[in-house]
């Protein structure tokens, strides 16, 4: 339950809290780039010492030592592609379950950028539990349906 504390933040604190938020994800972005930097640095260092003696034979696709037959992108039957469809359904379920899980028991404090408590959110309790169980039940029904329709097997 929301208390009647106003949720509006002053312009400066709102600015600071956004900056905190963005900085956290800026760090994430920098770490993604770190992989690129590391690959570039190591391969760059390797370029100084590794040999380069091109011979046509080296650039043939490997196929157990014989010349490759046909092309490298043959048509393959992906026998479990239907699982990918099921996966999407359950993945969306996970998106709903996580926010719910954080508030099922225990109170949640809504805080501003300085850590001051703006409002105390009450737990969902048994009402939320029953609702989510219904949701999970419907999804599980979908899984059982797929199971009965013999989708979950090697095709």
């Amino acid at each position, binding site marked *: 339950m929301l208390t009647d504390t106003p949720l509006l933040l002053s312009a400066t604190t709102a600015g600071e809290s956004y900056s905190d938020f963005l900085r956290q994800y800026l760090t994430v972005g920098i770490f993604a780039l770190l992989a690129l930097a*590391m690959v570039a640095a190591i391969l760059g260092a390797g370029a100084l*010492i*590794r040999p380069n003696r091109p011979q046509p034979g080296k650039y043939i*696709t490997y196929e157990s030592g014989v010349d490759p037959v046909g092309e490298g*992108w043959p048509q393959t039957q*992906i026998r479990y592609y239907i699982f990918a469809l099921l996966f999407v359904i359950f993945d969306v379920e996970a998106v709903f379950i996580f926010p719910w899980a954080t508030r099922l028991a225990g109170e949640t404090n809504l805080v501003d950028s300085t850590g001051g408590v703006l409002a105390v959110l009450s737990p969902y309790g048994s009402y939320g539990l029953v609702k989510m169980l219904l949701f*999970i039940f419907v999804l599980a029904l979908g899984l059982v349906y797929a199971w009965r329709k013999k989708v979950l097997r090697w095709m």
Partner: protein
Amino acid sequence: MNELVLAIELAFWQQTLIKVLVAAVLVPTTALIFGIVFLFKVMSWMQSRMGPQEAGPRGLLQLLADGAKFLQKEDIIPDKADRFVFKAAPVVVLASTFLIYVILPAGPDLIISDLPTGIFFAMAVSSLSVIGVLMAGWSSSNKYALMGGLRAGGQLIAYELPLILAVVGVVIQAGSLSMQDIVLAQANGSMLGFSGVGLPFLITQILGFGIFMVAIQAELTQPPFDMPVAESEVVGGFHVEYTGFRFLFFFLAEFATAFAFAAIAATLFLGGWYVPGIDPDSMLANVVGPIALFVKIMVVAFLIFWFRFTYPRFREDQLQRFAWKYLIPLALVNITITGALVVAL
């Protein structure tokens, strides 16, 4: 947000620079530790053989020697390969690894960025590696690589779900997604009124822990779930065309990710950096925390690699069946039981 690190005020860019440098050293080091301790020493011990002996004392420098060797290998990209995607694939896999390290807490202040979405973020970025693996498999223009890549894709999405759903039980109990909050929830918890050692969620989430361990085994494409990289079937799978250090990046990412997953398991189920008896807010926790976390990681990793060295390979259809018919329903049952108990108690 100038945080106090070692009693010195640092600007954001200075903090970030330090974090980047630490991670750039830490991530390859964790891969080296796992490679040497588990792949060489524990594996040879479990299989009653000697393992590497020559490079350095007791063969401890073998992996460094291997790294130096790979650095000198000629860089070969097959003519038929899609060059850009071929080169980008190791970067994507490595980026996924680095991003998991962002949310790993080693002490009350020792975390790169305590994202409010913590564990959810970790699950999301860890699945990025599938894209890198598929890129490698497809761009090689090689039948083995393509099959290995597709197998990896099918396997990783099948085990993504048990992995995510097993975590939900912990999140329900902790009431937060942030890794630090999950550690603190365990530190402040109590077992039947006894709060001396906190409440490691392993005790209440034993089912979740089991599902999580099986799922990370599959996510790491390790035996018994190593069909995507099976030597005898697809000669290494998606990385068959990679040579030199480009190949080693996949190896590095695999072991660094193994370390990161072991760290996540240790944090979620064994209390992370928390040591009973040490105030989790004190400066001492920053010193003891990393050591405690490392010990817990090694315990979890020993389990992971024990499975790896002991079990024979699954068949592809058995793998899919195991995930969809056993692990996912079990994970849903785990969520239901945890939710009901948490609300009822």
